[in-house]
């Protein structure tokens, strides 16, 4: 009998699917669709760090996210650190937003708006890159 972690790195291993959705209590789609790959997530330091106020089932992964996000991290960075797919990570972060445990800052939607980033941002990025 195979253990569920076996083949965890295989692209198409069925075993990889069971555990992530156990963490989310069987939910496979985020309730909120406003989280993006680079939405920055920050733990609210004043929030109760104990049982997770208002969070029905606090999983170890929820606690890990709170610890990781003491400094702002992008959704993609959180997913990478947890070694979980982005969609599963979004569900968990959504839980923490609902429970007022984390704050999320979305990116500016340049492309969708058919616009370009403003000069302030462009100059800041250019100067930052030059110092690289």
């Amino acid at each position, binding site marked *: 009998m195979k253990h569920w972690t076996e083949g965890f790195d295989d*692209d*198409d291993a*069925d075993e*990889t*699917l*069971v555990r992530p*959705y156990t963490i989310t209590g*069987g939910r*496979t*789609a985020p309730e909120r669709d406003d989280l*993006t*790959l*680079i*939405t*920055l*997530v*920050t733990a609210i330091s004043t929030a109760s760090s104990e049982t997770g106020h208002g969070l029905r089932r606090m999983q170890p992964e929820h606690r890990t996210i709170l610890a990781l996000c003491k400094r*702002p991290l*992008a959704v*993609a*960075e959180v*997913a*990478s650190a947890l070694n979980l*797919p*982005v*969609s599963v990570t979004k569900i968990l972060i959504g839980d923490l937003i609902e429970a007022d445990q984390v*704050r999320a*800052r*979305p*990116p*500016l*939607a*340049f*492309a*969708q*708006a*058919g*616009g*370009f*980033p*403003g*000069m*302030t*941002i*462009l100059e*800041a*990025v*250019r*100067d*930052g*890159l*030059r110092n*690289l």
Partner: protein
Amino acid sequence: MDYAISDHGDAAPLAVKILIAGGFGVGKTTLVGAVSEVAPLRTEEYLTHASVGVDDLEGVNGKSTTTVALDFGRITISSELVLYLFGTPGQERFWFMWNDLVNGAMGAVVLVDTRRLDVSFASIDFFESRGIPFVVGVNCFHGVRDRTQEEIRRALDLDPQVPLVLCDARDRTAGRDVLLALIDHLMAAQSRTAPHPVA
């Protein structure tokens, strides 16, 4: 009204993104790794989940479910601004994620390998059709420059105003210069048209 990067009392910086696109093996991950302040990170997404909107475990447990992996890197510009670089493959099977990938993207670098220009056609088509600004980075594998810039432009059917930059994806300075070429391109586009700058 010009834009202040810091958000009203929000502690989190603003995140922006540059897409590093192009076909398989053109050097996307290499470029991300060369300029990122951290080793390239990897994240996965379920292919079937997002592409068909599966919302129950039955579908997710289906044998056809696979994951796709994305590499990304990070450059902290300041306490108020973070730049992420996402390697974005051109294959159609990734396109379900492109709405999310494009969200917050300032623009893109499309990497090409002169020996296999065709593998980057899909990426160029994508950005052209969506009006997303991009520059083309010619990754000079083994220092080979077997085609002139004019030949490459013609083969890619590139709009004359799209910058084409030679680079070595393994080199930090060369990689940075490709990103700077994109920023210059964005600045030029903005001062030319000044449409409706977002922030």
